[in-house]
């Protein structure tokens, strides 16, 4: 049984309206200020550090993203922490605010399917984040040019573009989660609190809990401990558990893409490194291959959360 008409009818109208709402909202302004100021502080420290360090580095621009100078974390780490906040800030009242404003039944009485409303709102949120991140990316490159005086090479641009794309998918995960919660909880405050709780748990608590769980699953071997080494099984379990957090996936992908010398993201045995020229950068394609599983993980997570929200929204009653 096929339904008549296109499910995408009206997506454009919803998208444009939501995008202009997002961009002109005070909330977005605050989120952007927060991210720009924090990121600029991290970037400033990185520039200071790089200018003092005159060692030859073929990827000077990329170092801007990854160098951290205590007490500030690196630019990428700041984004890994703040992108979720931005996505949650945009998404936590996507659907429940329509219920609470009592606009939902009026909008759905127009000749569109519910799909159009959900998809239009989601894409508008993602586009808002993408615009902000692109602006930020351009800002970094511009500041790099001004303060470091070295024009970026093609590969550096390619790598930093890969960073941009992965960062947008990372935002997509959190936006899907926030949207799902905005469908489940009728009160925006509850949805926001639950989303922030999940965010704090996954970015702050989980990296501490994962090693503890790994040691419970696979207790460390005392023979390795006597040598001052990590037990391989425990280390593998730790990494596996940590990868449940999108934050960790983003961090690993960034490491592979922005640090060209990264050869592997997991523990390796010495014999696996036989023949490798330590410290030599990998070609761009190889780095992308290393980051690929993490990127796919982020995309899959986005899709799964979006579909869950989609199914719930289709089954939800329109009336308050």
């Amino acid at each position, binding site marked *: 049984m096929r339904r008549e008409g296109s499910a995408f009818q009206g997506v454009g*109208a919803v998208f444009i309206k939501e995008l202009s709402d997002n961009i002109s909202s005070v909330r977005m302004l605050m989120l952007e200020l927060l991210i720009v100021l924090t990121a600029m502080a991290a970037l400033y420290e990185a520039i200071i550090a790089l200018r003092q360090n005159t060692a030859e580095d073929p990827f000077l621009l990329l170092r801007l993203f990854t160098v951290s100078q205590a007490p500030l974390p690196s630019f990428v780490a700041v984004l890994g922490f703040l992108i979720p906040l931005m996505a949650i800030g945009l998404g936590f009242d996507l659907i429940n605010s329509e219920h609470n404003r009592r606009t939902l039944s009026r909008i759905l009485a127009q000749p569109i399917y519910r799909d159009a409303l959900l998809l239009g709102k989601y894409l508008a949120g993602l586009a808002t984040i993408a615009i902000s991140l692109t602006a930020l990316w351009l800002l970094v490159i511009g500041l790099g040019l001004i303060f470091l005086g070295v024009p970026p090479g093609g590969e550096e641009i390619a790598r930093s573009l890969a960073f941009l794309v992965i960062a947008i998918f990372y935002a997509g995960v959190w936006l899907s989660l926030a949207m799902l919660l905005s469908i489940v909880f009728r009160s925006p405050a509850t949805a926001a609190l639950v989303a922030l709780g999940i965010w704090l748990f996954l970015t702050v608590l989980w990296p501490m809990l994962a090693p503890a769980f790994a040691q419970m699953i696979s207790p460390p071997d005392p023979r390795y401990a006597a040598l001052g080494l990590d037990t391989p099984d425990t280390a593998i379990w730790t990494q596996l558990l940590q990868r449940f957090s999108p934050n960790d996936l983003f961090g690993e992908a960034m490491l592979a893409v922005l640090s060209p010398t990264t050869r592997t993201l997991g523990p390796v045995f010495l014999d696996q490194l036989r023949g490798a020229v330590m410290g030599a950068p990998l070609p761009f394609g190889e780095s992308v291959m290393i980051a690929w599983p993490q990127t796919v993980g982020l995309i899959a997570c986005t899709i799964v959360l979006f579909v869950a929200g989609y199914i719930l929204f289709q089954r939800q009653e329109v009336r308050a």
Partner: protein
Amino acid sequence: MSDQKPEGGAASPDVVIAARDLTKRYGKTSVVDAINFDIAKGEVFGLLGPNGAGKTTTILMMLGLTEISAGRVSVLGFDPARSPLQVKRRVGYLPDAVGFYDHLTAVENLAYAAKLMGLSMAERSQRIVAALSRVRLLDVANKRVATFSRGMRQRLGLAEVIVKRAEIAILDEPTSGLDPQATLEFLDLIRELKAEGVSVLLSSHMLDQVQRVCDRVALFRTGKIVMMGSVAELAVQVLGAGFVVEVEADGAGIARRLAAIPGVGNVETLAEDRFRMTADRDVRPDAARAVVAANGALRRLSVDEPSLEAIYAHYFQASQSGGVRDAA
């Protein structure tokens, strides 16, 4: 399959909405229980009943906004469950306590809805200005909706129905929470719609208003339509007679002559010169003739039109006491 007219759904070409055994169940409880009704083109039809009687659910099923558990409904020949877009393109809906985007102006709110209707830019601006002037909101067209009163919001909602040029307007509790002046204005707008040939489906628990605009009403009770027809018909059904005429006149044998008028149920003599008749129609002309024919002096002739309120109260009281007796 989707655009096919359902056979047997529309009995006559004048029927715009036809419901047959329409049922909505949540779990085991039926919120709407096998209701049947036909709404003719150009008619103002009232759904009335207490809150929670199933009025809004019925409306949402007609728009395809909630699933139908059993039975069928055809709106302008379309099945809302199969071709919701066709139905929603032709039917305007003003929800109960309609909401707008407060940070946008009246025009921007309407423009968004008009975009979703798929209207072109030129068409949009022209229709929006026309609709806003009809609901007398043109002077606040560029004010943010946050500053609007309840009555203005309801009228803005009606403007949206007008922008759509809907063939059927479905209005859910359109006058609840409005002050008397705003209510009167809104009822006038509904009459204007009817005059243009728009069929109006109105749900309400405000009985005197429904009575003022509706051609026919359906009385809802716990998901069932217990009565349907014009207010006068219902009055005859429930109160026994629809019209109560009071006559004040001097003269001999007036009571007898009044009782002889066809359609008069009984005549009470309230005082020597005052009589109260109950009749199933407006018998004032006949009463006047009867008094004059008896050489009486007619001083006063008044009629109490059947009030929906009386019908409603009478019906629900009767069925409640019946229910108590059944339980005991």
